[in-house]
């Protein structure tokens, strides 16, 4: 570590401990490969692949160490002072690790998938460079220890995803990129206003249990409500809360791995994660409740859930249908957060992981259809299950999970959300969940029906990868969805076991609701 | 005032009178050539008179000669510039004023 990184003690000596370096190493394990990849010539495929995968594996390794450490009571904090009173803080707490783990695991598989997906296409150095930067930003968002650090990486995420969205360079892609930027940068600006305002009031906004804002007296209630509105509006853009969701369906022009990453891990999830952080650790859930901020949030989330599902019903384009589904599903997280009470929290936070696994499965599969057979539309999917059984099987698991069929991941989320709603005294949320589930079924089941039970009526739009030795598509494309589909199944089945996402979520909830024991 | 002072004053006054004449000529004369006559002759004589007038007031020989030097330089400049301006005016076709034909015209058109 160079001079200036790390904490200067009184004598100006720089001391960096292992516990401080680990968060940095997690960041560096994708940042450095990203930067190296940028400078690699286009044709150095092998070297690039090696960098990518080494980075991904290293990151998983570092995270594993931290997971182990956190379980054993270690704390991982790194601080770097940018300005007096303004620090970059990386902290590996339970919530952070939940998200970091999710993104690292999914990054690994998405990388594999992307290597297969982009085989032979141009500008791969650029693509993987930004891809790595994007993950770096996500990790930064996850491990941010204060609102400032969160904001820094939140904006970095915007910038590093833009080149991925416009990667194809078509006018449609550029248009979509423009819309994407317009939304996210405006959101970022609104968020910044909220952040600066809050810093002005507090002098620092470290993420803390019970919320830092709760230290302010009642005379600040009005200002704090305004700030809350700004923060949620800024985060809501990425989290695709209605009516700030307009960019997401447009961004579907991006290559499938990008969509997968955007929806499951990076952009959307960063917004949702931010909402979690703001409600729990900036305001504190009790304080937020006392400012009566939670009910409106729940209402917005519910509206988004219903609206997204409704819109999804009418999309023929598979990826667009999935996109609207994302809008709907991600709001479960916000909903869970808005439900006052530990059980709702559990539902929301566990959905952070579950939705990621399920949705990435679905996008991998959608990418497979498009890449292998040129299928982009639901109406072209008749009989595809028999041409691509493995892919369709994975898709089926993901879809059923989304609907909430037990014992899949989605069921766990919905169950706790329902319980949480009752606990919070908002029974109307149950109705929302019910309607949403019905709608989920209404837009997923027809797909499954077409894939499995309808015969192929027309030739595939463009069969790019022929059937070879019984392999329906390239193995790099097939492996990732199968793994994530299996995960969907496993996290549901073994939800009660230690180290499962639900278990971690309980850890988080226990931090927020101090006198609650799961 | 001493006699020398009187002499000085007279020269100065005469010089001023020439300057006045030059100016009046500049204002009254009908064309550029005649005005040049007025300037080149009256003013230089005026300057000469003033220089002579001031010679009587000079502190030293060198100072006096410097005044004369100034006059000589002015003379040279004046003579040269008069020529150049008149020449150029002629080249540009400006005809001299004639008593029987007042007004400006080009000499190559008449």
């Amino acid at each position, binding site marked *: 570590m160079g001079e200036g990184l790390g904490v200067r003690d009184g004598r100006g000596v720089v001391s960096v401990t292992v516990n401080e370096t680990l968060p940095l190493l997690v960041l560096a394990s994708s940042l450095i490969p990203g930067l190296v990849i940028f400078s690699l010539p286009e044709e150095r495929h092998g070297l690039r692949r090696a960098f990518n995968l080494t980075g991904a594996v290293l990151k998983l390794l570092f995270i594993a160490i931290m997971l182990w450490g956190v379980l054993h009571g270690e704390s991982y904090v790194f601080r770097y002072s940018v300005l007096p009173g303004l620090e970059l803080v990386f902290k590996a707490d339970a919530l952070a690790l939940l998200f970091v783990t999710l993104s690292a695991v999914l990054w690994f598989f998405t990388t594999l998938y992307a290597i297969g997906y982009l085989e032979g296409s141009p500008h791969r150095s650029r693509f993987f460079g930004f891809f790595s930067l994007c993950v770096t930003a996500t990790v930064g968002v996850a491990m941010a220890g204060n609102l400032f650090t969160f904001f820094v990486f939140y904006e970095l995420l915007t910038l590093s995803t833009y080149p991925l969205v416009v990667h194809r360079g078509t006018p449609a892609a550029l248009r979509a990129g423009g819309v994407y930027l317009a939304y996210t940068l405006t959101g970022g600006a609104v968020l910044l206003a909220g952040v600066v305002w809050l810093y002005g009031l507090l002098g620092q906004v470290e993420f803390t249990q019970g919320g830092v804002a709760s230290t302010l007296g009642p005379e600040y209630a009005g200002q704090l409500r305004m700030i809350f509105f700004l923060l949620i509006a800024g985060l809501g853009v990425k989290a695709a809360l209605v009516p700030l969701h307009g960019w997401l369906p447009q961004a579907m022009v991006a290559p499938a791995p990008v969509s997968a990453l955007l929806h499951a891990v990076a952009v959307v999830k960063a917004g949702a994660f931010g909402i979690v952080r703001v409600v729990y650790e900036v305001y504190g859930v009790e304080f937020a409740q006392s400012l009566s901020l939670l009910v409106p949030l729940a209402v917005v989330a519910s509206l988004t859930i219903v609206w997204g599902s409704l819109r999804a019903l009418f999309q023929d384009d598979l990826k667009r249908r999935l996109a609207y589904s994302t809008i709907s599903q991600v709001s479960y997280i916000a909903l869970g957060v808005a439900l006052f009470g530990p059980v709702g929290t559990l539902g929301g936070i566990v959905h952070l992981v579950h939705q990621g696994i399920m949705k990435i499965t679905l996008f991998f599969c959608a990418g497979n259809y498009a890449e292998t057979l040129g299928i982009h539309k639901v109406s072209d999917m008749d009989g595809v299950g028999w041409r691509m059984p493995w892919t369709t099987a994975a898709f089926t698991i993901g879809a059923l999970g989304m609907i909430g069929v037990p014992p899949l991941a989605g069921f766990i989320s919905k169950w706790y959300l329902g319980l949480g709603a009752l606990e919070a005294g908002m029974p109307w949320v149950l109705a929302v969940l019910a309607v949403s589930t019905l709608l989920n079924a209404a837009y997923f089941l027809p797909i499954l029906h077409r894939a499995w039970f309808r015969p192929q009526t027309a030739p595939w739009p463009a069969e790019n990868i022929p059937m070879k030795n019984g392999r329906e598509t390239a193995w790099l494309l097939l492996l990732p969805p199968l793994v994530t589909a299996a995960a969907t199944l496993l996290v549901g089945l073994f939800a009660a076991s230690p180290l499962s996402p639900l278990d971690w979520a309980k850890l988080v909830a226990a931090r927020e609701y101090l006198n609650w024991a799961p | 005032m001493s006699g020398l002072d009187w002499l000085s004053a007279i020269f100065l006054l005469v010089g001023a009178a020439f300057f*006045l004449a*030059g100016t*009046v000529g500049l204002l009254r*004369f009908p064309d550029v050539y005649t005005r040049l006559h007025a300037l080149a002759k009256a003013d230089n004589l005026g300057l000469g008179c003033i220089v002579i007038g001031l010679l009587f007031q000079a502190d030293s020989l060198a100072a006096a000669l410097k005044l004369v030097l100034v006059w000589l330089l002015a003379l040279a400049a004046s003579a040269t510039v008069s020529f150049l301006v008149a020449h150029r005016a002629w080249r540009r076709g400006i005809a001299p004023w004639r008593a029987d034909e007042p007004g400006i015209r080009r000499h190559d058109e008449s």
Partner: protein
Amino acid sequence: MPRFPLRALFWRGALFAVLWWILAGGRADSWGVGLVSVALALAASLALLPPRGNLPSWRGLAEYLAFFLAQSVRGGVQVAGMALRPRLDLHPGVLEIMLRLPDGAGRVVLANTLNLLPGTLSVGLEGARLRLHVLDTRRPVAEEVRVAERHVARMFGLRLAA
């Protein structure tokens, strides 16, 4: 003139030295810079106006000056009279005269001199042809020009053409 123009060098040097003396007001401490300046001026002068061998004659110069002074007083008085008279009484016209001076500085000095003499203004000088603007065509200008020409020729030690 292949011979090193020692005489010209001396006279011009003396002239510049005198001029310096005038400029510096006779101060003795000025001669350090003064000598350098005089030398430079002398060099410039030799480069710009290479001496032609024949020095101006002192007598010619004196006569010329006397003539010039007298005539310019006359010229000034004449013009002043014309300017200040209540009614303008001008009879201008243009006159061309073939000069008898040889080509060179002499002609220019003459043309310039005429500008300061009564009633004449040089308008053009091409070769030997001198074009004059005269203030009063009724006066014998041509004769006066000849007189002036003679004075200039004598001062420069030149011979007039026939």
